């Protein structure tokens, strides 16, 4: 079974704060993704990567940076957090882009006050 681990699971920060969400997968998958989930919008793709050092822009990238430091680790960076970024964030990995099964982490709940 694929394993994707996110941290922290819960985070509260203030407007303008700096937040890093971490994701690690131990399945040697090439692709990793960051999604946000909000009521009324379903799952929306922020950024994704197909390998260490690679970054691709998703559908809602504004206000977010991301970095893939290794095949296992993918980070989502909010350098000036805003209340509109309060959301549930999911990391996911897959072996082959949209041709491989997607495996999600447990989610990280971020609240920006």
């Amino acid at each position, binding site marked *: 079974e694929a394993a994707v681990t996110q941290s922290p699971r819960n985070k509260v920060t203030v407007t303008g704060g700096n937040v890093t969400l971490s994701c690690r997968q131990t399945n040697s998958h090439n*692709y990793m993704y960051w999604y946000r989930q909000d009521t009324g919008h*379903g*799952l929306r*793709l922020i950024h*994704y990567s*197909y390998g260490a050092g690679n970054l*691709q822009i*998703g*559908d809602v990238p504004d206000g977010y940076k991301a970095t893939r430091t290794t095949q296992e680790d993918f980070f989502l960076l909010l350098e000036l957090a805003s209340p509109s970024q309060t959301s*549930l964030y*999911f990391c996911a990995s897959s072996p082959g*882009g*949209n*041709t491989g*099964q*997607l*495996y*999600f982490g*447990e*989610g990280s709940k971020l609240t920006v006050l």
Partner: protein
Amino acid sequence: GDKVKQSPSALSLQEGTNSALRCNFSIAATTVQWFLQNPRGSLINLFYLVPGTKENGRLKSAFDSKESYSTLHIRDAQLEDSGTYFCAAADQGGSAKLIFGEGTKLTVSS
């Protein structure tokens, strides 16, 4: 418009009954995945489909790429089936991005 449209948006079932969820695609979908988001928020893999059918216990899913739809059948619904079901499709265009539907919220009651 919606590239992946799920129906119904919400559904209530009695324990022991059967039902079907549907996804319609306005893209040339090549593969489909179904997920269950349980009440605790975890996203659980249910099926990964190329055109055809798969079955797992009380769940059965079908994907017809020519008619551009997929279905998820739930037989003998149980309380633990409650949650939100999402389908996601890969576009023939080759992007590494999956396109998600908005979900079907299922409530099973005794």
